[in-house]
């Protein structure tokens, strides 16, 4: 974000040749790192998913079961057909997308409310609330998931209290509801930090001007504050959604056996069913969905760099 913003602000400056080389050299370590440790494995995995079982994939191929072997020079779509023909996959994909949408939506609403409350009130309560909402950042996800599972289980606190009062509270342990609660819990801190900083950046003068010209508080928020914090909100939304769509720990520990989110499902294919090829196919599907969400992030960045210049 900052890099693009920086190049956006300095497009006309002509740099000497040596500076360009130095710049390239400075950028080289991360590029080499990404190419070697991320890029190559991705290419390798893509080749494996297309049925190229030799070379670097031969060790994996030796142990895996139900593999498709390349039939053309480019490979075969056998593994993809295998995955896409299973109802379970489409069910898992639907659940993954729905949980991501709901969790992201709720997270954004909660984070925006806290940010606005903090911006407009500035009281001790609002500051306390904002500080409290960041707490999940400091609690490991495994522990939080376990706590959520126990809390909403058949013997959990809400059910115990409800039973004493004479009515029955639903059991949420091992259901998708628990997954949504867990996802919101883990995503909230980052969203609050991001959106709060965006909302704090709106100058008092702008809000006061809107109020002076007769806008109600709601109107001032809706037409002035939120649009000015639009980019941080989009960034928070994309990061939250990408984080949730690839999550494993929360759905693995708190979710139902079926349908599961794809993160759990592809781990099952990899380990429990010993079908790494199919697992990689599912990983690519998650990657594509995440890339679509990422496109929104790039667009927001583009917009923000234009705003700067």
């Amino acid at each position, binding site marked *: 974000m900052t890099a693009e913003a920086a190049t956006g602000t300095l497009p006309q400056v002509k740099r000497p040749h040596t500076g360009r080389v130095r710049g390239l050299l400075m950028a080289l370590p991360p590029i080499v790192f990404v190419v070697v440790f991320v890029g190559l494995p991705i290419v390798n995995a893509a080749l494996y998913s297309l049925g190229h079982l030799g070379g670097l994939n031969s060790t994996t191929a030796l142990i895996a079961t139900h593999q498709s072997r390349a039939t053309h020079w480019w490979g075969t779509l056998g593994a993809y057909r295998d995955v896409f023909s299973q109802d379970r996959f489409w069910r898992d994909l639907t659940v993954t997308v729905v949980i991501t949408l709901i969790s992201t939506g709720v997270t954004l609403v909660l984070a925006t409310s806290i940010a606005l409350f903090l911006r407009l009130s500035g009281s001790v309560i609002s500051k306390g609330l904002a500080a409290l909402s960041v707490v999940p950042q400091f609690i490991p996800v495994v522990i939080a998931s376990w706590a959520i599972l126990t809390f909403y289980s058949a013997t959990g606190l809400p059910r115990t209290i409800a039973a004493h009062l004479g009515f029955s509270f639903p059991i949420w342990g091992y259901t998708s509801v628990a997954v949504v609660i867990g996802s919101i819990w883990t995503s909230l801190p980052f969203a609050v930090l991001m959106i709060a900083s965006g909302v704090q950046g709106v100058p008092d003068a702008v809000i006061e001007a809107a109020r002076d010209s007769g806008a109600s508080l709601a109107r001032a928020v809706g037409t002035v504050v939120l649009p000015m914090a639009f980019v941080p909100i989009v960034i928070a939304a994309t990061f939250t959604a990408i984080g949730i769509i690839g999550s494993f720990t929360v759905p693995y*520990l708190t979710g*139902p056996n079926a349908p599961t989110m794809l993160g759990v499902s592809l781990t*099952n294919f990899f380990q*429990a*069913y010993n079908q790494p090829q199919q697992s990689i196919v599912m990983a690519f599907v998650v990657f594509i969905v995440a890339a679509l969400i990422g496109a929104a992030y790039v667009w927001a960045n583009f917009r923000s760099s234009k705003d700067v210049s």
Partner: protein
Amino acid sequence: MKRRAFAAAAVAVPTSVMLSGCLKSSTSASNGGGSSGKGATKSLTVLLGDDTNIQDLWQNGLIPGFRKSNPDADIKIDFDLHSEHSEQNLAKMSAAVKRNQSPGFDITDESVTQAAQADLLVKQDASKLPPLADMPKTVIAQGYGAGVPYRASSVLLAYNTKTVSSPPKTLAELLAWIKAHPGKFTYCSPKSGGSGGAFATTVLDANMPKNIQEEMRVKYDASLEKYWDPGFKVLRGLDPYVYQKGVYPNGNNQALDLLASGQIEMTPVWSDQFITGQKNGQIPESVKVHQISDPSFTGGANYLGLVKTSPAIDLAQKLFTYILSPEAQTLIATQIAGYPVIPLSKMPESIQKKFADADPSDLRENFFGDFGTDLNNLWDQKVPR
């Protein structure tokens, strides 16, 4: 291997294990290389992927026992709790064998069947290891000609005596009990724990012709899986009666926790895990176990494999011979309440008495090799909603 209860921990990346493994292999190879060549290597590393009770068994039982007759042997243990790193260890083994190097351990009890299938282990037969001749054919077959069975355990039905006065004696009675007591029974999903796998296997068996059951225990043939369909229908039919209308916990331990906290009244459990659990207080006194019949729950042997490229093959074969001796099998039976794998008639009388009700030679094996992973997969597709 089947006990891998906690795949969650697979998130961790265990590079340190790999490093330590490499270091060990180089030292063990150079120790023996001195005067008498490779065959006389006196140092050996055993990779164990189990719970701590198995580590104790080796450290305080089997290794000291073996050193009585081989005082100069140096047996080390590379311990991988709950087989959390079994995937990496298997990959390390296959890579090392391909390059004709030692993977850093000589004997493994992790992923033995997979390694044997991939031809990474030294082949074993009765001429090399005479006790194998006395073992049931199905037990040997599941070792793919390379795995050495060395201890066994079986799955039993655990129930809460506070609420269940007369537990079901047969599978049919158990199924009827589950339907009569909705929400009071569950088993862990087969992929997450062997106790759940045994329950599923037993129900599938009960709905399959006898000859197919036997065939599925000696060789892998995916076309036979169509015979599972009636059994899966029965399991699917149980779904609304299972805990919380269809919740199957992850792993043997989670199922036991539900039983111990009184949320369910009955669940299948590993024999040795139950005994250990009652010893350390994880399972209350009020929980009892027994084996059902017609058919009984499956169990299985745990196998040891000797890596093909190990520099200590002779010593390892000697260790195998010792482990299959009545003396070592008695240690297994007393220390971890494991089932002996050699015929009971060769064991001391006290052990014969202890296992009189659950004859290890009657142990019903799980399905063969890849049927296991296929069962995990199909169960996930067909049983939970």
